[in-house]
C-alpha cells in the first residue's frame, strides 16, 4: 500500500522523547554493524592477506596509535589548513569577481568567456603544470585548491546578484540609499542564498581534489600524503584509518560549517525556511 505508507510512518514515529531518539540511532547504526560484520568475517577468513585486508580491530588500533603519537592530528591539521587557505582565497576572489560580473554589464561581457573556458577543465589536470611552475609543496596545492573552488563561487555569486529583484534596488534608490548602503543592505542579503550555495559547492570541490593534490605534490604533512606514503609500506590499516578521518572531516564540514552559517544568516533574515 504505497499511498498509506507516509501516513503510517508519521503515526508510527513518536513525537519525540528518548525512545524515539534511541530508535533513530539504532536504525542508523544497523547498516554499519552489518557491513562491519561482513568486513570482519572476510578479514578473518583469510581470503586476502591480512596485510591488505586488515580486521576492524587492527584499523582501530592503528587509528588510536597514530592519534596518541600525534601523527594523525598533525596530518589532519595540515590538510585542514591547506583546505581553508585555498578556500578563503577562492571565496574572496570568487565572490568579488561574481559580484562585479553581476553588477556591471561590461565586466560580465569581458569576464564570462574566460570563466566559461576555465570552468569545464577538471582542476586536477592542472596539477602537474602547477607543480612544474611552483615546485612541489604547499604553494601549488593551495593555489590549485583555490583555483578549482573559485569557479562555482563565481557562477553562483554572479547568478545571485542578477537574481536580486530590480524593484528592491529601485526602491532602495528612491529611499535615498547610496551605492554602499545599496550594496550592504540590498544586494548582499538578496544574493546571499546563491552565494552560500556557491561557497558550499566550492568547498566541496576543494575537498574532493585536495587529497589527490597532496598525493601528487609531495607535501610533508597531510592526510592524502599519509595515505599515499602508507601504500609504499603496505600499511593498509594506516590507509583505512586515514580514510576514516577524511570521512569524519567531510561530514563535519557539512554539518558544522554550513548548516549553522545558513541558519544564522538566511533563516534569520527569513529568506529560507529552516
Amino acid at each position, binding site marked *: 500500500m*504505497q*499511498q498509506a*505508507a*507516509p501516513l503510517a510512518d508519521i503515526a508510527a514515529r513518536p513525537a519525540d522523547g528518548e525512545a524515539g531518539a534511541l530508535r533513530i540511532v539504532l*536504525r542508523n*547504526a*544497523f*547498516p*554499519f554493524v*552489518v*557491513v562491519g560484520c561482513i568486513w570482519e568475517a572476510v578479514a578473518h577468513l583469510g581470503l*586476502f592477506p591480512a596485510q*591488505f*585486508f586488515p580486521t576492524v580491530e587492527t584499523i582501530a588500533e592503528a587509528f588510536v596509535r597514530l592519534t596518541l603519537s600525534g601523527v594523525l592530528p598533525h596530518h589532519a591539521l595540515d590538510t585542514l589548513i591547506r583546505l581553508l587557505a585555498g578556500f578563503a582565497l577562492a571565496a574572496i576572489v570568487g565572490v568579488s569577481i561574481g559580484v562585479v560580473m553581476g553588477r556591471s554589464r*561590461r565586466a560580465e*561581457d*569581458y*569576464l564570462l*568567456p*574566460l570563466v566559461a*573556458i576555465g570552468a*569545464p*577543465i*577538471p*582542476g*586536477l*589536470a592542472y*596539477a*602537474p*603544470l602547477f*607543480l*612544474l*611552475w611552483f615546485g612541489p609543496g604547499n604553494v601549488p596545492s593551495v593555489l590549485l585548491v583555490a583555483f578549482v573552488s573559485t569557479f562555482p563561487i563565481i557562477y553562483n555569486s554572479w547568478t545571485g546578484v542578477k537574481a536580486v529583484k530590480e524593484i528592491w534596488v529601485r526602491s532602495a534608490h528612491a529611499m535615498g540609499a547610496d551605492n554602499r548602503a545599496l550594496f550592504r543592505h540590498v544586494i548582499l542579503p538578496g544574493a546571499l542564498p546563491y552565494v552560500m550555495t556557491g561557497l558550499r559547492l566550492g568547498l566541496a570541490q576543494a*575537498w*574532493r*581534489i*585536495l*587529497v*589527490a593534490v597532496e*598525493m*601528487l605534490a609531495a607535501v610533508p604533512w597531510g*592526510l*592524502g600524503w599519509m*595515505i*599515499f606514503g*602508507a*601504500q609504499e609500506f*603496505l600499511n*593498509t590499516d594506516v*590507509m*583505512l584509518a*586515514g*580514510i576514516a578521518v*577524511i*570521512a569524519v*572531516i*567531510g*561530514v563535519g*564540514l*557539512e554539518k558544522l560549517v554550513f548548516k549553522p552559517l545558513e541558519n544564522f544568516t538566511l533563516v534569520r533574515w527569513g529568506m529560507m525556511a529552516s
Partner: protein
Amino acid sequence: MTADRVRTLRRGATSIVIAAAVYQAVAQSGFFASALMPGLPTIAQTLFGMLADGSMFMHAVFTLYRVLFGFGLAVAIGLPLGVLMGRFQAAENFVLPLASALMPIPSLAWIPVFILWFGLGNTVTVLIVFYAALFPMLLNTWTGVRAVNPIWLRAAGAMGADEKKLFWKVIIPGASPFIIAGLRQSFLRSWIAVIGAEMLAASNWGLGWVIFDAQQFLNADVMLASILVIGLIGFFTERLVFGSLERATIYRWGMARMAKG
C-alpha cells in the same frame, strides 16, 4: 538587441585575445624557462603533432573507455538502488546512512588502497570513477522518486495501473528531471576522477597519465595540449550529450521547470 549582442561578442573576443597575449608575453619574457611555459605556437604545434600521429586519439579513447565503463557501472547500480530507496522504507533505512558516510570521502582518496588491492591499471581507474559517480546518481534518483507527486500515483492506481505500469509510466518519467540532473552530475564527477586516477594509477595510456608523464620530462607543451583536449571533451559531452538528452525527455514532457528546483 542585435547591437547589444555584437557588443557582447566583441568584448568577449577582446578579453580572450588579451588573455592569450598576456600569456604569450609572460611566456616570452623568460620569467619561467620556456620548457616550463611554452609559447602558444609551440603548444599548437604539439597539439597538431599529437593529433596527426594518433597518440592524442589513443589517449582520449583510453580515458573515455575508463570513464564510460565506471560511469555505466555507477548508473547500472545507482539508479535501481535509488529507486528501491525511494519506494521502500527498509532500503532507505539501510542504504542512506552508509551513503552519507561514504559520500564525503573523495573518491581519489581510495586510489592507494585500490592500487594495493587490485594492482596498477584499468581496474583501479574504473572503480574510482564508479565510486565518484555512484553517489550523485543514487541520491538524485532517490530524491526524484520521492518527489513524484502522490496524486499521480493515486490517479494511476485508481485508473487500474499495476505496479509495472506505475513504475514505467509514472515514477520514471516523474523522477526524470532529477535522474537527468544526477546523470549530469555523475558524469562531471567521473570526468574529474578519471583524470586524477589516471595520474596516480594508469600505466601507459590516458589523458591524465600523459599529463603526469610529461611532468617527468618537463614537457609543458604536451601538458597544455592535453589539458585543452580534456576541457574540450568535457565541454562537448556536457553540452551535446546531456543537452540533447534533456531536450528529448524533460523538455518534451514539459517538466523542465521542475529540474531547476
